[in-house]
């Protein structure tokens, strides 16, 4: 049995407290009036130059909010009002990015876990308890995300422009989509997605524990197999719709048909990386002696492979839009390349080039510190990936990694560590009832 060390508990609580304080101060220090924005911008006049030109190209929020005013917006108060809205969005958006990022890690692990059952994989059962513990974060993480989504869907904050009735009034495109993009439908769908995932999580973990107690006839294992196969069907539809709702609708004019897959690749690789990191941490603390470096090797292969899969999808989306150069589509990437050059291209280096080169060699995949190093870079890269998907439509060119971004990450990191490691203490680290556990223990490559 794993026991949560006081140091780790304290560490995660400190992270949460520091993150919480930082986030509150992020909310409190957002400018309230146009005058404050002017003062702030005078202080940072290095920024000033770029604002005027890029203003008109602003995709989501800007065009709809101030569509008619855009022509004479430059220089006038409209511009400052616009920046004010972006800065007011900023703490909300950073809260959203961090909440979604840690939630998607747990969701990726849940999908990976279900695949292990559905595929009757023989190598992975020694890692099941780690996976079950990570998915424990789905409960608090999902509830928090649901609250944020409900607030956004009913326009308490201004994250989703389609939730603003004043914007929709003047926007024929969003009006056409309002059958899907409306607060009520949004919340109902979120409840269905989260409900389904949590339901599977609940029963999968329950059956896994029961299988430990009574392995005769593999009764519980067979049930796990069935619900896992069913869940995967449910998941691939709901995950896709979730990505439209929760991410793609930030830019409601724009759409991409492979967006669901793209988000899936991101959450899958983040989840697998987290399994590897937590397993290596537990091994370093003397737990999980039954995990050998072939298991780590396999996880690292998945990290490598899914990183490349992510790049493949990213590029498939990018190249077609770049090539055809249709204004309504290409605006998505123009915003990102012009205003988000560093995170946009930096993310490619972190999510593709770095894991490609570091994890290519077979031997390096068995060296723990290589896997940890690659894993940390991959996780940071996928945080930036989510950041790039959310921020351009919510804060536009007024982005910077400031107190609220860092605090939101710390807050959810603390919560994540706290929930996951507490969940690890709830059951023995070896799922001893699993019929493939012996094969998994002797797994070697």
């Amino acid at each position: 049995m794993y026991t949560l060390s006081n140091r780790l508990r304290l560490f995660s609580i400190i992270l949460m407290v520091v993150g919480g304080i930082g986030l509150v101060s992020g909310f409190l220090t957002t400018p309230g009036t146009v005058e404050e924005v002017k003062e702030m911008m005078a202080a940072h006049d290095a920024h000033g130059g770029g604002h005027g030109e890029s203003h008109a190209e602003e995709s989501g929020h800007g065009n709809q909010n101030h569509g008619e005013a855009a022509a004479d917006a430059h220089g006038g108060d409209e511009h400052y009002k616009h920046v004010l809205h972006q800065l007011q969005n900023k703490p909300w958006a950073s809260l959203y990015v961090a909440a979604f990022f840690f939630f998607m890690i747990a969701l990726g692990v849940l999908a990976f876990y279900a695949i292990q059952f559905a595929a009757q994989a023989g190598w992975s059962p020694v890692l099941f308890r780690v996976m079950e513990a990570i998915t424990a974060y789905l409960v608090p993480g999902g509830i928090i995300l649901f609250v944020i989504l409900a607030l956004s869907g009913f326009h308490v904050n201004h994250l989703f422009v389609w939730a603003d009735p004043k914007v929709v009034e003047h926007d024929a495109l969003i009006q056409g989509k309002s059958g899907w993009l409306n607060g009520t439908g949004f919340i109902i769908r979120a409840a269905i997605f989260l409900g389904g995932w949590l339901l599977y999580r609940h029963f999968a973990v329950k059956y896994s524990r029961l299988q430990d107690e009574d392995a005769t006839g593999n009764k519980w294992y067979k049930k796990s197999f069935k619900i896992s196969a069913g869940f995967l069907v449910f998941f691939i539809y709901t995950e896709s719709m979730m990505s439209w709702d929760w991410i793609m609708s930030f830019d409601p004019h724009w759409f991409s048909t492979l967006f669901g897959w793209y988000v899936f690749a991101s959450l899958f690789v983040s989840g697998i990386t987290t399994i590897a990191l937590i397993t290596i941490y537990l091994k370093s603390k003397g737990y999980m002696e039954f995990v050998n470096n072939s298991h780590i090797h396999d996880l690292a292969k998945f990290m490598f492979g899914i990183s490349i899969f992510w790049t493949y999808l990213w590029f498939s989306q990018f190249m077609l839009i770049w090539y055809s150069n249709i204004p309504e589509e290409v605006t998505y990437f123009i915003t990102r390349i012009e205003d988000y050059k560093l995170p946009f291209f930096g993310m490619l280096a972190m999510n593709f080039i770095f894991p490609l080169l570091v994890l290519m060699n077979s031997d390096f995949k068995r060296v723990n510190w290589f896997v940890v190093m690659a894993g940390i870079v991959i996780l940071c890269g996928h945080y930036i990936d989510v950041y790039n998907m959310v921020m351009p439509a919510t804060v536009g060119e007024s982005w910077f990694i400031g107190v609220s971004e860092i605090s939101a990450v710390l807050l959810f990191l603390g919560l994540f560590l706290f929930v996951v490691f507490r969940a690890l203490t709830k059951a023995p680290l070896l799922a001893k009832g699993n019929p493939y556990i012996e094969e998994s223990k002797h797994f070697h490559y």
Partner: protein
Amino acid sequence: MASKVIHALYIDDDVLMDAVKKVRAEHYHIEEVFTPFPVHGLDKAMGLPHTRLAITSFMYGCVGLTVAILMMNFIMIEDWPQDIGGKPSFSYLENMPAFVPIMFELTVFFAAHLMVITFYMRSRLWPFKEAENPDLRTTDDHFLMEVDAGNHDVDTLTSLLSDTGAVEIKVIDKEEDNH
């Protein structure tokens, strides 16, 4: 000069694996093992060094990537400048997304084909090559271990081999060939 080798035949891969380990533990030199199918872990048991094919594959991939870049740069930018996707920038870098599929394909093409050719050369396989395996049954259901008798006592070696479960043991005077 003739050298003596002993051919021991086995009919099971697990028995063969144990035999290889025992013979190596007694410090005899195993020249070669002929099997009808790849036996997992046999290379490790025989103490063969790790393959360097992966390194060659990486290098061939780099060559393929370079060829693709130089080729596309010459064809699409220098020799006959193309207006790609309505963006007549005539710069390789700015048009790079259009070339990525070719860069990828040629990397894979070079890595795969040259790696296979390297593998054949390294294994001394080419068209019309005469088979090296000493016993036809190793292409069907038998496993053959070729042990170098050298200066060892042939009788102790044969008794060791029969203890390991060999179904047939032959002492062969082998003409020195030059492979």
